[in-house]
């Protein structure tokens, strides 16, 4: 059974806050839920499926379903790091296709700027061998970038173009945390954080959140909103696998991407807009290669000279400014990737970055730690005429 046209995104909401010292995390979830449902023209009483991950406080769906006052018949708390919410769209479509629910609500929220957040889970089998190492996300992604440079000659200047493109888009987003346009020189002269990644190669840390509403095609047609259909989805995980044949230059998106494109029946050359999870500049470069927008090792050349800038380049990406410049709520950029793809497909992106006739988009992400074990999720979305 295919997910092609099995479900539609009818509601999307990105919380405008980037700093929320006086709010609670459940409150943020609730405001995101209300925003996405209002966008769809639906209410909490219409929801019969609820999706969340470990950013949800307490007992996850049990706590949040009660807090929100939902009456649901299907729930899913699949957890795959920051790309989870892309995966949730596909899992919601699966549930809808099976008749398990018809209006699925997905929420994400957190306040990592306002309060300490536990990011590592005790008891993992690898913990004793890895935690003392200092494998922060910076060093993990730094090792991927270093190996990519070693094997393919990728340069810091090429990586910098990814931040430059994101900043060109962020200047048009009134909510972006970093709205200032930067240059390649700005990026490569910013302080080194974890070689070879500079401060401006890294994403922002923000409080906030987002929500999505996924419904059956029948319900979508009754709502007075553009219908955004799911055409295909793929997911995959990758890890050191015992350490033989370690390859830090390839991500799990090399599997999730082709699976999504095959189900959708389209190719990367058909895509008009791409939301690419950008925890770091190297994250984007590897996913572009792994999804097939260019050959492995050619990512540096592909992103150079503004090729990702809307209106200038061949592949407009992250037109909200992405995690690099706009928002990375709760260290989890997956949901904002879907939200900006929906804006583009509806023609509701900032006018300066709106892609003309944008009818086909991809949203893809990495969760976990790219230099260790991680997951990838990819979805292909289409605007129905």
């Amino acid at each position, binding site marked *: 059974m295919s997910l092609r046209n099995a479900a539609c995104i009818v509601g999307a909401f990105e919380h405008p806050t980037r700093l929320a010292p006086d709010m609670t995390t459940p409150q943020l979830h609730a405001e995101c839920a209300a925003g996405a449902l209002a966008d769809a023209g639906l209410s909490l009483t219409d929801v019969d499926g609820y999706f969340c991950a470990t950013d949800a406080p307490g007992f996850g769906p049990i706590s949040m379903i009660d807090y929100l006052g939902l009456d649901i018949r299907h729930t899913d708390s699949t957890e795959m790091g920051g790309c989870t919410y892309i995966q949730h769209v596909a899992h919601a479509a699966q549930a809808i296709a099976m008749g398990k629910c018809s209006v699925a609500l997905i929420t994400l929220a957190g306040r990592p700027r306002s309060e300490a957040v536990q990011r590592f889970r005790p008891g993992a*089998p*690898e913990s*004793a*061998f*890895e*935690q*003392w*190492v*200092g*494998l*922060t996300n*910076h*060093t*993990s992604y*730094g*090792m*991927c*970038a*270093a*190996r990519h440079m*070693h094997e393919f000659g990728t340069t810091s200047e090429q990586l910098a173009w990814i931040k430059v493109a994101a900043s060109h888009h962020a200047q048009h987003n009134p909510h972006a945390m970093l709205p200032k346009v930067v240059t390649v020189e700005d990026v490569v002269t910013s*302080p*080194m*954080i*974890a*070689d*070879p*990644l500079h401060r401006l190669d890294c994403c922002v840390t923000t409080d906030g959140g987002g929500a999505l509403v996924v419904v059956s095609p029948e319900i979508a047609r009754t709502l007075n909103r553009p219908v955004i259909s799911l055409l295909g989805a793929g997911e995959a995980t990758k890890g*050191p*696998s*015992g*350490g*033989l044949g*370690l390859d*830090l230059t390839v991500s799990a998106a090399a599997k999730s991407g082709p699976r999504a494109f095959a189900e959708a029946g389209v190719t990367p050359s058909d895509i008009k807009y791409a939301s690419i999870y950008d925890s770091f500049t190297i994250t984007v470069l590897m996913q572009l290669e792994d999804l097939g927008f260019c050959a492995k090792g050619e990512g540096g050349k592909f992103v150079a000279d503004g090729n990702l800038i809307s209106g200038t380049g061949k592949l407009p990406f992250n037109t909200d400014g992405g995690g690099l410049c706009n928002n990375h709520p709760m260290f989890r950029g997956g949901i904002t990737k879907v939200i900006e793809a929906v804006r583009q497909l509806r023609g509701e992106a900032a006018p300066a970055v709106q892609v003309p006739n944008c009818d086909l988009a991809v949203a893809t992400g990495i969760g976990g730690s790219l*230099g*260790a074990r991680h997951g990838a999720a990819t979805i292909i979305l289409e605007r129905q005429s």
Partner: protein
Amino acid sequence: MSVRKLPAPQPNPETQAFWDGLDAGVLRIKTCVDCQQTHYYPRHICPHCGSADTRWLDSAGTGEIYSLSVMRRGEGAPFAVAYVTLDEGPSVLTNLVAENLDSLAIGQRVRLMPQSSDADHAGDGPALPFFTAIGD
């Protein structure tokens, strides 16, 4: 420069022999009797074939740097995080010890140089599998 704390590992029945070996200066990895392949980190079942017939193997403790990243910010910085590919095959996530971290490079030959973890902040806890460049 702030001192970086290295928390003592918590051995369990799957890993006790690894930490005992390291305290004696030997890096133990696992090898599979059924598929003959090695793996790291060590575990009860072979991640390559699923066999539960895995045995301890004393590594020579030598290999080369697969990739590295020097952390420049935060507690104890700078320090070098790396994957070292052992001559027996598997890659090990580790830290590199060097007088000059900028001298380290992908492809460089390295050897095991265990460092003590912090037991009760005393620095005399169980050894951790650090590596250092051969010739340093």
